[in-house]
């Protein structure tokens, strides 16, 4: 076959393997073709999580409940942190519900390359389907946590007058997208970098812990003043947590600008993440 023939039949090739793909060749259509795989991965994570445990799916309930109880006792009962006049239990549960979804998305996507090296080394499928499936399967546990929260929320609404739900609730899907986008974006950036620098893996574990204290999870934004307030507001998760409380509980000292800032941050992080991930996946097998 001469090169002219190849030129003539160029359009017939289904797949062209080249040294480096261009920055814009993200192959997102391929991800859609593999949607069955994504669903199966989601389902695998969900099933494998509680197989061979005594309490089974109940673990999805126990975790948020215990965390909230501990927070209520330590930060409310012992440290007497302000909760903006809200019932402490509900206050902490609201913060924790939101935060834990973001934290899970970030930590579970940040090891995509290193923990899947064995399978990535043998067969090709769009690498992005792994972190995407993580985001979705975490959505299931978020749904359960949210259900628990709503149950208590209804109870407190019937017994106390401190809670004022309002139309901000309609923003819940937006908040979800913000959390998922930020968690995924940061997670895949870190996972791309950990193919070269394993240190980052150490950082993620306690980094997420520390980041929680820079987010109004255990304290309301209203108690933060001065220079610290700016610092906390610079954290894009602040707007998400505060908006969630505002929507369901009715108190917050947040301006809508913060939410826009958070959305902008998400877009930037997500786009950078997808580009870097796409860049790294081509050759990471040579460096892992």
């Amino acid at each position, binding site marked *: 076959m001469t090169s002219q023939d190849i030129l003539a039949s160029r359009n017939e*090739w289904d797949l062209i*393997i080249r040294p480096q793909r261009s920055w814009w060749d993200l192959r997102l259509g391929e991800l859609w073709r593999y949607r069955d795989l994504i669903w199966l991965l989601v389902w695998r994570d969900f099933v494998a999580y509680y197989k061979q445990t005594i309490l089974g799916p109940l673990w999805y309930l126990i975790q948020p409940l215990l965390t909230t109880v501990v927070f209520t006792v330590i930060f409310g009962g012992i440290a007497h942190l302000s909760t903006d006049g809200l019932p402490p239990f509900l206050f902490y549960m609201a913060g924790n519900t939101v935060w834990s979804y973001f934290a899970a998305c970030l930590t579970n996507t940040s090891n995509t390359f290193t923990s899947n090296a064995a399978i990535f080394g043998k067969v090709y499928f769009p690498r992005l389907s792994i972190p995407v499936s993580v985001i979705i399967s975490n959505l299931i546990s978020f749904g359960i946590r949210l259900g628990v929260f709503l149950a208590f929320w209804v109870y407190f609404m019937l017994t106390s007058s401190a809670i004022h739900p309002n139309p901000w609730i309609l923003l819940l899907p937006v908040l979800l997208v913000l959390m998922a986008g930020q968690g995924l974006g940061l997670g895949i950036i870190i996972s791309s970098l950990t193919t070269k620098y394993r*240190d980052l893996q150490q950082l993620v574990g306690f980094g997420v812990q520390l980041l929680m204290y820079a987010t109004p999870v255990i304290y309301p934004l209203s108690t933060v003043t001065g220079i610290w307030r700016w610092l906390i507001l610079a954290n894009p998760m602040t707007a998400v947590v505060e908006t969630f409380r505002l929507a369901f509980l009715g108190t917050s000292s947040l301006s809508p600008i913060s939410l826009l800032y958070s959305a902008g941050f998400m877009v930037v992080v997500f786009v950078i993440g997808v580009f870097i991930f796409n860049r790294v996946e*081509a050759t990471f097998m040579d460096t892992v």
Partner: protein
Amino acid sequence: MPGTVISVENLSKCYRLGVIGTGTFHGDLDRWLAKWRGKPDPYQIIGQADHGNRQGETLWALKDISFQVQQGEALGIIGRNGAGKSTLLKILSQVTAPTSGTVRVKGRIASLLEVGTGFHPELTGRENIYLNGAIMGMNRAEVANKFDEIVDFSGVDQFIDTPVKRYSSGMYVRLAFAVAAHLEPEILVVDEVLAVGDIEFQKKCLGKMGDVAKEGRTVLFVSHNMVAVASLCSKGLLIDGGKIEQAGEADFVISKYLGKYETKAEYRSSRSPTIKNKLGIVRASLLKNNVISDTFYSSENLTLQIECEVKESIKGAQIAFDLLNEADQYVFSSTNQDLTRRKDILAPGTYVFECKFALNLLRSGKYRINVSSSIPAIEMLDIADSSLVFNLLDDSSPMLMLGQNRRGIIFLELPWTVLPKG
């Protein structure tokens, strides 16, 4: 020519050996600082600099390879260890990207680089079939269509709803191969999966691959088993040192491959350091009275010494070797579990295996030895094919003439008696 389904043009792959990142940010910063101040690299491996050529830091696993595969062709890719066969397959199956060059493919390509990829121990056989099928690129409907066939082929139908962690290793491998064998890609890439399972299952697998080829689909087959290549493939591609040595009819290419052995008394692994072998063969040598030698006499003993490196504790692994003659016939095989069938656990470290045997049964000629490490019937760990080649000279002087004229693979001197009947 409308029938071309794979077109490889000027494909090269280069691995960087010395300058892979140090693995930590701190390390890279150190190296960068040292370079900036004009000091030597603090992470340079001592002794490596003695080679003196910067070129030594790169390894061209493939260099400027071009070939085409036609629709329905079964192409056998052969070559010695480290020749670049696996790298070629990895590029074709998109596991890693080439350094330069292009590959154009028509139709869906699926690879069986290793079976059982992505099996989850907690899930049942049924669940894993769906998951594994999806990883290999099938959608749910396709797997559902093939489901009964897959279960049938694997022979584990009784246990299909049992978590695969309860499977025996043999069952696990059979199920995994069954899924892979029922993919229906236009192009199938296979790498030495036949090294798993028992003889009967291997036959089944070879048959299945033959069917795939007969159905007009294209098969790329990498194997060390020349008999399998000869029976399955119509075309052959011989790779050596990252370049195409020979291409053409399978029989012709195989004969080229077999004819090119020179005596070699010592083998050292040339694998790139990125390959992590659980029980890697580092070195193998032929010894005559503790001295490395490539020429032996039939009255002498040969000691085969194999040095292996264990990266992480491994159970039930064995070291084996095959002895082949010039005609590529297997003369015999042996494993370190021949006499002791223990399933020892090998802790990480370096081990030296030795096997000593007499050569008096062998005819004179050139022999080669394949060394391999595996967990029997489960997993092939490392293969060093034709790693050692030696000349055997017949020194049993009275029989010398006789021996050369006899037929057969081996040479025996048997005691005879003759008595008048009655």
